[in-house]
């Protein structure tokens, strides 16, 4: 897959139509505003790539100590259990019948990918229904 798509040569694209502003205003940090411009469809995101912006992003990245695996930042098992219980309590009022986080592990990478696909489609549907 990597060889076919040559992924290692694909660089991050700029964030969106407000990327220009942020280059001159480093204190402006609002990822929602950055990614979700008013009056634009999501299909237009990430399309305004210029060589200069790619260079600016690359230089910025070099300055940052970027954590390698965001989702490897763990909670303790106790925190996991507490968070799980809190939201289940709030949404269902029936905490006793809910599987634990450990039970929710996916049997295969395909199953995990399908979960993420389903979640994305669910949000597309509910937003379209608004």
């Amino acid at each position, binding site marked *: *897959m990597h060889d076919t798509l040559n*992924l*290692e040569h*694909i*660089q*991050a694209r700029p*964030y969106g139509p407000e990327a220009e502003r942020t280059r001159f205003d*480093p*204190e402006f*940090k609002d*990822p*929602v505003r950055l*990614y*979700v*411009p*008013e009056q634009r469809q*999501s299909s237009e*995101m990430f399309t305004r790539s210029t060589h200069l912006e*790619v260079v600016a992003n*690359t230089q*910025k*990245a070099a300055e*940052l*100590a*970027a*954590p390698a*695996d*965001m*989702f*490897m*930042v763990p*909670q*303790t098992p106790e*925190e996991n259990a507490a*968070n799980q219980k809190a*939201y289940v309590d*709030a*949404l269902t*009022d029936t905490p006793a019948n809910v599987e634990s*986080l450990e039970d*929710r*592990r*996916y049997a295969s*990478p395909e*199953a*995990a*990918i399908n*979960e*993420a*696909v389903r*979640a*994305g*489609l*669910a*949000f*597309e549907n*509910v*937003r379209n*229904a*608004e």
Partner: protein
Amino acid sequence: MKKFVNAFSKIVTGSSTVAPASRKKLSKRDLIRMESKIGAKLFGPIAKGHRREFFCLDAHTWIWYEEWSDATGRLQSVTTRYEVQPTGILKVQDGQPYQLVEGEELQNFALATRMYREQVIPAVYHRDPVTGQPLAAGTR
């Protein structure tokens, strides 16, 4: 249940759930901002001085944003974009090449998207997270 959801929404978003009538006036950006307030709290307490955003941008894209001040007081931030395709999930951070998400990180990411769906859809959209159908008035 309505009291519960309102209380829960107030805890995570700072305001009660939005009434259907006023929700119609919200833009996509407003909705995603509300979603992100819930999404940011999926991963436990946020370290003091940090700001976090986590949200579903569109059907195929998820954004993680973390901001903090370093020892010199300079503002630092990292934006991570996850691109979901049926054949795999790609991760890209500012200016770096794409990486395929695998192993424990893939498990955790998938679980995060599920928790996000289960929490955000009822709280923000008043819909069942599985069926997508509007919640009955008594369960809001």
